């Protein structure tokens, strides 16, 4: 037998001034199964709560309605009250007679009439309330970080430092990512590798971090706390423990190709470490290039390896590991600006991208830090920078701003002025976006050093003699401008990895129209995804500069850590649940679930002597967030939402209408 107690709050005069609470009390007493009604000046006050506890005990209440403020305000408060009176907290229903009634209406009669309806609704709903219990999922305290760039490294270190095991997976032979390719970093101009390399080494040596380079994630199953992940560890052809990294092998290797790390500006061998400070500092064999793998002959490297570390017969291995959380930090790619034929990239060797320039400026770069024109090795006298190549261009590129270009271009200008006395630099820009600590000052410094900022887009770049003519427009002067340049540097957009979407599918997270992974909430849950237990760090979530990337790496780590702080995850019990007897197993509910919480399972039931085995839907209470989209997709109503069940909502509708 349902025994409902109704507690009407005056909220001082907040409610009582507009709603005739005594009359409401009289009315409530007549409602079905209401056995006790009480008014309080402040129900949320300690005495008010005590009254509820007492009433529950004295009148053997098994359902409680509190007519007061918004449940968003005090639902948790009163749930605790019920719990402390050893009544299941979910047997509470609130009627919002303050925010939704007394505060927004003046006519006492009307407000009171409405309050009746609201209480009627609450009483009707609470009748059908069921005791609910939080479910718990064990957490496997081991994290997987995908991507060994600065974001991944930072996340891995922060997780590892708080005592949890981490596997850091990187598909290249070394960690370090984009940052390793940079020379200096804005706005402080400290040397990129000087601040990155130590972190790379820390990551490699950390007792809690396993570094898996030359490896890729292939399959992800399971859910928060218990992800099953298949990782392919590609054959490096080198016995890492034996290799001393002496370098003899790549000295001798006869097969050459353009070095990806230097974007083709320099050369590498078939057996190589991408760059001197690589971590791990052990070579890998590029089997597509290696003469032995192509012809079956050569083996020079093996011959010269005193440590006998070269193992041609190595095979890829696929390992399956269990993790409690995953951080995706797969970074970005450069926009393919080939679409800007008018900028002559590819046609003229002296048209390069910002990243190329980084390599040219870098002391460890192909030109040992001397900026030379790729065409003739001459020192450039006039350099033109073109901003927003791809960025902010719906027609040919992407709609968004890549955020870092303005600043790294300023950096490039500054560094050129420092390296090449008398150089003249022009920057064609749409807007300069220097929002960041010390950024505006940095941009100002570039101008002081002589960088000439021209507000306008570049129309075309073409060769005249050994010069490049840059035709553009100065929108401030409203005139066409032409610059004869030796070097043209394109600030190409940052775009999502070409294969980001397939990784997103593997991970079961969503991505935006540009292929960047989407966070659970743009403001409040910036590093979480809609898939519990999977977090984001760095440019895979959207273009970022280094400070933001590092911050996000740390943030993601913090999220992982507080997930790992618990042995078991407690999940809210207001989740979807399946009535298997009713479920037809059509699974139309499945696609509507943003959390991949719905799956199918086989049940068998007796029917007229026959044993029927059939598929039905099943909900993973740990993943379900209780949105209820599935309940409407279910025609039978076999899929129901605890706390907001079909029965309850129908009853509410019945009760709330006159």
């Amino acid at each position, binding site marked *: 037998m349902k025994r409902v107690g109704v507690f009407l709050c005056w909220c001082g005069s907040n409610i009582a001034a507009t709603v005739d609470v005594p009359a409401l009390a009289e009315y409530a007493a007549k409602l079905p199964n209401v056995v006790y009604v009480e008014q309080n000046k402040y129900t949320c006050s300690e005495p008010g709560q005590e009254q509820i506890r007492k009433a529950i005990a004295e009148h053997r209440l098994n359902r409680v309605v509190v007519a007061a403020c918004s449940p968003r305000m005090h639902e948790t408060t009163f749930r605790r009250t019920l719990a402390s009176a050893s009544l299941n907290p979910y047997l509470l229903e609130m009627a919002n007679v303050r925010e939704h009634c007394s505060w927004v209406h003046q006519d006492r009669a009307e407000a009171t009439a409405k309050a009746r309806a609201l209480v009627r609704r609450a009483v009707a709903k609470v009748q059908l309330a069921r005791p609910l219990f939080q479910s718990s999922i064990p957490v496997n305290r081991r994290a997987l970080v995908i991507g060994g760039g600065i974001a991944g490294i930072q996340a891995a270190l922060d997780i590892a430092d708080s005592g949890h095991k981490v596997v850091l997976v990187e598909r290249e032979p070394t960690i370090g990512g984009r940052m390793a390719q940079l020379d200096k970093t804005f706005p402080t101009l400290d040397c990129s590798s000087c601040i990155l390399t130590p972190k790379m080494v820390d990551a490699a040596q950390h007792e809690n971090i396993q570094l898996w380079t030359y490896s890729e994630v292939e399959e992800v199953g399971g859910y928060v706390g218990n992800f099953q992940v298949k990782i392919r560890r590609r054959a490096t052809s080198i016995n890492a423990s034996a290799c001393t990294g002496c370098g003899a092998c790549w000295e001798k290797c006869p097969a050459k190709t353009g070095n990806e790390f230097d974007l083709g500006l320099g050369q590498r061998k078939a057996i190589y470490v991408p760059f001197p400070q690589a971590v791990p500092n052990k070579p890998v064999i590029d089997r597509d290039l290696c003469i032995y793998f192509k012809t079956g002959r050569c083996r020079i490297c093996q011959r010269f390896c005193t440590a006998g570390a070269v193992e041609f017969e190595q095979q890829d291995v696929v390992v399956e590991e269990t993790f409690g959380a995953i951080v995706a930090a797969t970074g970005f790619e450069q926009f393919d600006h080939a679409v800007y034929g008018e900028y002559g990239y590819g046609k003229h060797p002296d048209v390069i991208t910002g990243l190329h320039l980084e390599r040219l400026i870098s002391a460890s770069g192909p030109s040992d830090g001397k900026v030379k024109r790729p065409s003739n090795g001459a020192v450039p006298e006039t350099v033109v920078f073109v901003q927003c190549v791809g960025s902010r261009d719906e027609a040919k590129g992407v709609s968004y701003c890549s955020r870092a270009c303005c600043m790294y271009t300023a950096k490039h200008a500054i560094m050129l002025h420092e390296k090449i006395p008398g150089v003249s630099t022009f920057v064609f820009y749409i807007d300069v976006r220097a929002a960041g600590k010390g950024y505006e000052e940095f941009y100002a410094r570039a101008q002081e050093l002589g960088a000439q900022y021209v507000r306008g887009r570049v129309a075309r770049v073409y060769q005249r003699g050994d010069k490049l003519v840059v035709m553009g427009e100065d929108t401030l002067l409203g005139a066409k401008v032409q610059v004869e340049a030796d070097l043209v540097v394109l600030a190409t957009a940052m775009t999502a990895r070409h294969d980001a979407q397939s990784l997103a599918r593997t991970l079961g997270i969503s991505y935006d129209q540009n292929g960047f992974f989407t966070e659970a909430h743009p403001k409040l849950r910036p590093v979480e995804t809609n898939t519990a237990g999977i977090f984001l760090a760095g440019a895979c979530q959207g273009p970022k500069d280094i400070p933001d990337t590092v911050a996000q790496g740390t943030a993601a780590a913090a999220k992982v850590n507080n997930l790992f702080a618990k042995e078991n995850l407690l999940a809210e019990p207001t989740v979807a649940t399946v009535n298997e*007897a*009713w*479920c*037809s*197993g*059509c*699974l*139309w509910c499945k*696609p*509507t679930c943003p959390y991949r919480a719905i799956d199918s399972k086989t049940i068998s039931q007796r*029917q*007229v002597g*026959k*044993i*029927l085995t*059939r*598929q039905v839907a099943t909900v993973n209470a740990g993943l379900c967030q209780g949105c209820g989209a599935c309940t409407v*997709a279910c*025609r*039978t*109503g*076999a899929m129901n939402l605890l706390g907001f*069940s*079909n*029965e309850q909502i*129908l009853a509410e509708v019945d009760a709330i209408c006159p």
Partner: protein
Amino acid sequence: MTAWLDALRDHVREFLSEPGVDVFIGYRAGRRGREVPAFLTRPEQASGLVLGPAASGALAKYVLEEAAGTTGRLGVLARGCEALSLQRLVRDLRVERERLHVVGVPCAGVADLAKLEASLGALEKVESCGERWLVTAGGNRHDVDPSQFMEERCRDCASPWPQQCNISFGQAVMSPASPDYSTVAALEALPADERYAFWIRQFERCLRCFACRQVCPACSCVECSLDLVDPPWLGREITVPAQAMFHYTRALHVAGRCVDCGQCQKVCPVGIPVALLNRKLARDIQELFDVQNPFVPGEIEPLGKFRAEDREEFM
């Protein structure tokens, strides 16, 4: 007598003699000129197979009962709409496609038997003969023009030729038309009150016999929400509002999943234009979510997915 019928019978005979085959669902001659669903289990029964204009049932739905608790393969004779119905059941995971052996046959429209009887008297036989129908009724033979006596729903059939069959016989006789939404449009043109009056007049007649649901290939739920007492989606009371709720719910439940076989309307004993509800929803789905053909079962139903750039009317 259709040319391919013998070939069909031979095929079914073979099929039924294969191991692991439970049944073949087709038609056999019934009384009073009818052709009724037949459940063949033995090869020799194949010779009893018929398929004429009078075969007006919907075989697809029978698969549900036949497949429940059995494991063997099920053969089904399928005209265009029946093939779509089977696709629907398969897509709704109510039967595994592998278990089905779909035998496609052409369709030149199904005869409206009531109409034939009304004008020619008690039927004895209805057979198709080339472009025409030979009808034996009230002791006489009549050579009738199919277009005169064809079921309403067959007139603008978009898929007379069965798709996704394991095998098919004969060749297409009717060319696909595109669904005629003029009745829907005409209704939409009425003032709200007249539209309401129209529908209420229809719903008042509803007996809640659930024939429209029972015959519907999109209504394959193990348990129908309309049968449930708790939650009371549809009260037990038989009042006009409740009847409206019934038809509103039924239509929305098949929205995006209806294959337009028209059986719901055909079987209604009190002539409620049920399909007119389905068609309205189908046309809106086609327009709102630019679905190519709303009647062909897709991977995900239009209401089970969305596009961020869907039409926005609720700002």
